[in-house]
């Protein structure tokens, strides 16, 4: 297989699509990296489940305030115009359709938009957090992920085999190889790495990639 994007590069690519003026929730871990690559001049307001709108970057080490954290329990700062609210209001923002974009990680995404990202099955301690709420209500639900598992198996599949987080909820997927929309229960290819043929990409994708119009080159700078 040809080269693939790093997680930082996937985050950079997703950040280019953040709409100006959007209210956005970035899932804990990998999706949080997107905030670093927000294009200049675009205003984006970040929401965190534990009750902050418009938080900013992490404070310098040693000056953390542990009552000022994000959902990943990392210390954050406040931007001018930030607000606090309790958890029921926070999830009213989520389920009530007030967020423009929610970005999550994934174990598997099915061509019908089903997402599995919370449980690898029996034998572990299950933990769901806010993911099952976030996949409902945001106008767009994006996933950032490696295109395949560590063992090389496709993460984009016809049907998820792992426990679902939500049914038919994903709208767009940014992977290490491509950008793919979910349209009418199909994967529609938007961008792919220029060095990779459609056949090569299809071979590592577990469901059919549909073509609808031009496929853009997935050109991402070193970040």
């Amino acid at each position, binding site marked *: 297989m040809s080269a693939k994007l790093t997680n930082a590069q996937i985050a950079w690519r997703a950040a280019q699509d953040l709409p100006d003026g959007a209210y956005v929730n970035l899932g804990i871990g990998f999706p949080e990296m997107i905030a670093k690559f927000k294009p200049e001049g675009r205003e984006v307001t970040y929401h*965190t*489940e*534990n*009750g*902050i709108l418009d938080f900013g970057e992490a404070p310098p080490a040693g000056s953390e*305030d*542990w*009552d*000022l*954290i994000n959902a990943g*329990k990392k210390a954050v700062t406040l931007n001018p115009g930030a607000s*606090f*609210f*309790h*958890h*029921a209001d*926070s*999830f009213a923002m*989520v*389920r009530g359709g007030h967020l423009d974009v929610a970005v999550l990680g994934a174990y598997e995404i099915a061509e019908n938009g*089903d997402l599995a990202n919370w*449980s690898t099955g029996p034998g572990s*301690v*299950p*933990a*769901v*957090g*806010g*993911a*099952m*709420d976030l996949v*409902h*209500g945001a106008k767009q639900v994006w996933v950032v992920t490696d295109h395949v598992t560590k063992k090389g198996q496709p993460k984009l599949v016809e049907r998820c085999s792992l*426990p*679902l*987080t*939500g*049914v038919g909820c994903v709208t767009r997927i940014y992977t290490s190889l491509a950008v793919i929309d979910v349209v009418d229960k199909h994967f529609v290819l938007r961008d792919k790495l220029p060095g990779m043929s459609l056949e090569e990409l299809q071979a590592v994708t577990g469901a059919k990639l549909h073509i609808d119009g031009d496929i853009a080159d997935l050109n991402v700078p070193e970040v």
Partner: protein
Amino acid sequence: MNKICPSLEEAVAGISDGMSVMIGGFGGAGAPIELIHALVDRYKKTGSPANITVINNNAGNGAVGIAAMIYAGMVAKMVCSFPRSSDPKAFTDRYLAGEIGLELVPQGTLAERIRAGGAGIPAFYTPSSYGTDVADGKPVEEFDGKHYVRERWLKADVAILKAETADSKGNLTYRKAARNFSPLMAMAATTTIVQASRIVEPGQIDPEQVITPGIFVNQIVEVPNPAQEEALLREETK
């Protein structure tokens, strides 16, 4: 009306075996460490209160707070959304050994169930968890072409919470993102016990700034300079 309680010991004296206890906080922010440890100390001395059901977003971290309750052996069951943390050993070991129960609730559903409990709404429909294992056995209904899962309210015998400022009538303000679940839990418990960094006279909190009105609060105890769970954990692991 004076809801001030003179000591932590007296504040938690009414919590008895088998009760359900909502505990404020999201991770370390808002965790009422002194009230929790007053409860742990009582259990260690007297064996009571045992078989507690704890309702919190998480299931403890390290060996303080809820993790200390679990290590002490006084928790029968956790109701939470995310029983993982940087050091979840207290819960994980007992859970995998079958020694502690778990009701896993999506975070927004947990918040809304508690809000509903406090607001007199016995059930509601949410899109969250539809089509997932978490919705197994729950009634589903279609509204305007979309599926929703019916969830029940969640109440508790007791809530123990941390506030920044309280007045003697029980009006509360919180500090930054330490608010999280506490205003909801204050409504949903039969008895709401609050530790506040300072207690002031009625009128000294601007009514415009009150986050939890005193009607939801039964007892307050002053704990100046309270411990912060995350800061404690970082001290421990240094």
